[in-house]
């Protein structure tokens, strides 16, 4: 057994151990912390699977922003955790365990019996890379070959934020999301919130730009920019904008809006919906990606901030 395989077995075992911990531990807060660690280690598995684009997304969104979201909810539901909840009985537990073991066993069997040679679309993606002049195949698939998925996913983000905002109480309708954060202005948090965002924003833009040819792209860059914004909000240096503000809504709609305009232009002047002329493919894709990065950063940040809780007037 090589060193690499031994490392992979240890990594898988630690990931499964953390997964078990998040399910069986008593306190919700501990489960949340376990899930954040789980998300970061799963990103390592993605690196081992040679899927660095997914690893970046998993670390930034699954582990990072998702962790903040779950930790925030766990802290606010601290009191609810203490209330006694009726746990399911022994029989229900046993049947749930049996069902889960059966599901896992079926999936494990499917993994062991996967067909050889494996069916793949990679040759087609590599062979058609010339059409966009981008050399990162994942960006090609996301932005050109299956651009419809990405555009609809932007619409899902928009629907999610509308859903979150519609949970606002009447008194805070159209107001600012989340509580106003206070932090010691000379503390570590406020210091980091001044120090990190300039660097983080540059890193986010770099990740967006390098996504054309190397691992990276709009999702990963947007998530990093969003986390910088959230850092400033949590340190009390910035406040969440009122959701009725016109500029906020414009940024939220910019990504899917531009995508739709380019798609319709392809339908009118080109071959099909969302088809780019090969000569202009790269500038068009980069333009959409810039708009998408802004939209993703704003949407992820506002999804984390939650439903409006304070009226717009201070």
């Amino acid at each position, binding site marked *: 057994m090589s060193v690499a*395989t031994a490392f*992979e077995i240890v990594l*898988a075992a630690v990931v499964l151990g953390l997964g078990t911990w998040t399910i069986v531990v008593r306190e919700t807060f501990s489960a949340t912390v376990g899930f954040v660690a789980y998300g970061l280690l799963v990103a390592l598995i993605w690196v081992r*699977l040679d899927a660095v684009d997914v690893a970046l997304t998993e670390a930034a969104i699954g582990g990072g*922003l998702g962790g903040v*979201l779950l930790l925030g909810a766990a802290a606010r539901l601290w009191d609810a955790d203490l209330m006694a909840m009726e746990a399911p009985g022994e029989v229900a537990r046993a049947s749930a365990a049996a069902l889960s073991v059966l599901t896992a066993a079926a999936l494990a069997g499917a993994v062991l019996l996967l067909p050889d040679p494996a069916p793949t679309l990679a040759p087609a993606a590599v062979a058609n890379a010339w059409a966009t002049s981008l050399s990162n195949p994942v960006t090609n698939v996301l932005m050109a070959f299956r651009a419809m998925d990405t555009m609809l996913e932007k619409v899902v983000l928009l629907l999610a934020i509308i859903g979150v905002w519609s949970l606002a109480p009447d008194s805070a309708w159209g107001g600012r999301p989340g509580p106003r954060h206070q932090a010691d202005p000379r503390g570590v948090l406020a210091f980091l919130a001044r120090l990190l965002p300039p660097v983080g924003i540059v890193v986010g833009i770099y990740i967006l730009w390098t996504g054309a040819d190397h691992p990276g792209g709009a999702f990963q860059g947007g998530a990093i920019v969003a986390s910088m914004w959230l850092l400033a909000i949590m340190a009390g240096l910035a406040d969440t904008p009122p959701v009725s503000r016109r500029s906020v809504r414009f940024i939220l709609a910019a990504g899917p809006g531009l995508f739709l305009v380019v798609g319709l232009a392809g339908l009118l002047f080109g071959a099909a919906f969302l088809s780019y002329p090969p000569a202009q493919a790269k500038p068009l894709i980069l333009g959409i990606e810039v708009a998408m990065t802004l939209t993703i950063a704003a949407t992820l940040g506002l999804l984390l901030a939650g439903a409006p809780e304070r009226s717009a007037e201070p």
Partner: protein
Amino acid sequence: MSGVTVFGLCAAAAVGLGFYGLITNPQPLRKIIAFNLLGSGVFLLFGVVGRRGAVAGTGNDPVPQALVITGVVVAFSATALAIALLLRLFQTTGSTKLSNRTSPGDGSDPAGG
């Protein structure tokens, strides 16, 4: 046994774990975490299948990778919506109990355990 198979089995176990937690944990927030665990197992299965379909020039089939990136973002937004619903429920009722107030003579409970 290759590393890809190890991760495939790990993904299958994560799906099973998440499924168990989703059914048996009475706390809604724990159900959300368990559901995310289940989802991450499904994503990993995509990664394992994509890794086997790698050709020269790509370490992993780009099509499942793109699907997973889209899936991670959609899972995050669904989680955010679920948590917003949960916080609002807690704010309005002061509790996060999911069970509706069942009267004793209600008959069979379709939700089961």
